[in-house]
């Protein structure tokens, strides 16, 4: 079922890249952090897939930067509501911020389920298009 849901999402996101350098330039122009990441990446890593550690780090950053979140309470095990005190509307905003950070569009049904950092990590780490 998950695969069926992902297929249109993947098709929607496939783009032709004229050259890796141009793609990196475009990404850099729109998102400076993307450039740093691209530069920091080892030369051998051709597949765009993120390491789990990277996903965790960036997700923690997203949460810590959210205006309603106390950064000291953010941990990889945190539950949005129970540990961070976020309500359902905050959670929607957090999930949107995650989408922006990883250049994803998470369908409603999936997004509704993401109510903790472990679930967010799981979702992003397994998403083939996360960048």
């Amino acid at each position, binding site marked *: 079922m998950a695969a069926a849901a992902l297929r249109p999402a993947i098709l929607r996101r496939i783009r032709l890249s004229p050259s890796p350098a141009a793609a990196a*330039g475009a990404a*850099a*122009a729109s998102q*400076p*952090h993307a*450039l*740093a990441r691209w*530069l920091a990446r080892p030369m051998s890593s051709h597949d765009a897939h993120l390491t789990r550690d990277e996903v965790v780090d960036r997700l923690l950053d997203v949460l810590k930067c959210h205006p309603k979140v106390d950064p000291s309470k953010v941990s990889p095990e945190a539950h949005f509501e129970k540990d961070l005190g976020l309500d359902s509307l905050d959670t929607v905003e957090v999930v949107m911020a995650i989408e922006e950070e990883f250049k994803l569009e998470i369908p409603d049904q999936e997004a509704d389920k993401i109510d903790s950092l472990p679930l967010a990590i799981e979702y992003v780490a397994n998403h083939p298009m996360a960048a």
Partner: protein
Amino acid sequence: GRLSRRLLPLLLRRGSTPSISPARALSTAAVTADAPAAAAAAAAEEEAMTIKGVRISGRPLYMDMQATTPVDPRVLDAMLPFYLSRYGNPHSRTHLYGWESDAAVEEARARVASLVGADPREIFFTSGATECNNIAVKGVMRFYRDRRRHVVTTQTEHKCVLDSCRYLQQEGFEVTYLPVRPDGLVDVAQLADAIRPDTGLVSVMAVNNEIGVVQPLEEIGRICKEKGVPFHTDAAQALGKIPIDVNQMGIGLMSLSAHKIYGPKGVGALYLRRRPRIRVEPQMSGGGQERGIRSGTVPTPLVVGFGAACEIAAKEMDYDHRRASVLQQRLLDGIRGQVDDIVINGSMEHRYPGNLNLSFAYVEGESLLMGLKEVAVSSGSACTSASLEPSYVLRALGVEEDMAHTSIRFGIGRFTTEEEVDRAIELTVHQVKKLRDMSPLYEMAKAGIDLKSIQWAQH
């Protein structure tokens, strides 16, 4: 983060060089082959990007909301159909195009009326507040010219009211220009005293465009009612920002504008009371549209936009007002916390919070505005073209000339963000400090010298 920020300009510059360099080489070759001159040209090109040490790379943040406001996307959305398929003349009586435009105009009229507690039949569309002020001031006086020869207004009115009054004076009418108190408010007792048996109009603006002070409309309205004189108020800066009720405030005529409330430029409305009826002599002759008060085809898209802006303003007034208050406080605290010798022009208590007019002592206003290229603000003063006259509004408040020259009007609106306010604080503080560091006056003042004791040589 830091690494990428440093690398990004390098990379972008490298990327853009090939496309730019041939053109640049050509132009410098054409002008001169002289190497130093070419270097100077290149430096000038760099200079164009840098103004007073501040790099200008994008559109300035907009804080000139009293001049005009951006159009709200919801307003534009309401207008667009009337620029596309629904282009009929609302005065056409014989086909659908006319009927649908007419229906839209009447719906808009009802929306404008509803925002000020008026009857739709009391709303007349015009080109804007300036035209309304002309119709109100000249039109009332000319209509009742046989019995009424005198107008009461204030020294801080908008130019178009003052100018209409001057025009009336040339026609033989008399005008009393009331002074205002140092906080910008009119003295109500003084106003009552100024009204004579032959006074035909009292015109006092609701919210001042330069200093944002809110005049005591209800009290003025009550006095006018007692004395049987029509009360006109220019409410261009008040509509949709503070609650207005024509009955509660005893308003007889009122000038309204769309583009100060996120509507389109080029449209406004005159409120004209029906009971007791106030009549005016039209200033425009023609087809008799708008019940003969204002001839000329009613511009449907603009009027629809005005109506939409009023409807949104009615819904959003509380929200917008709360936000403007928070941001005004943030701006004031932010600047006051970092620079001293600041004066707020106009009452803080009776003020629309979307306006903050500040004077910075020992700073030359023109230099400050020039240095604030990344913030779109204006000085309270009319330092236009060659005349360096300070604002007549600030002068009427009794602000000294040097302080009147250093004023800046910050406007906060519906779309202003916290980040913009913070950036405006940062840039303003930076500029003021920089200019004061160069100012001998500031140095002397800090050394305890009373600047007023200095005898200046005439030149």
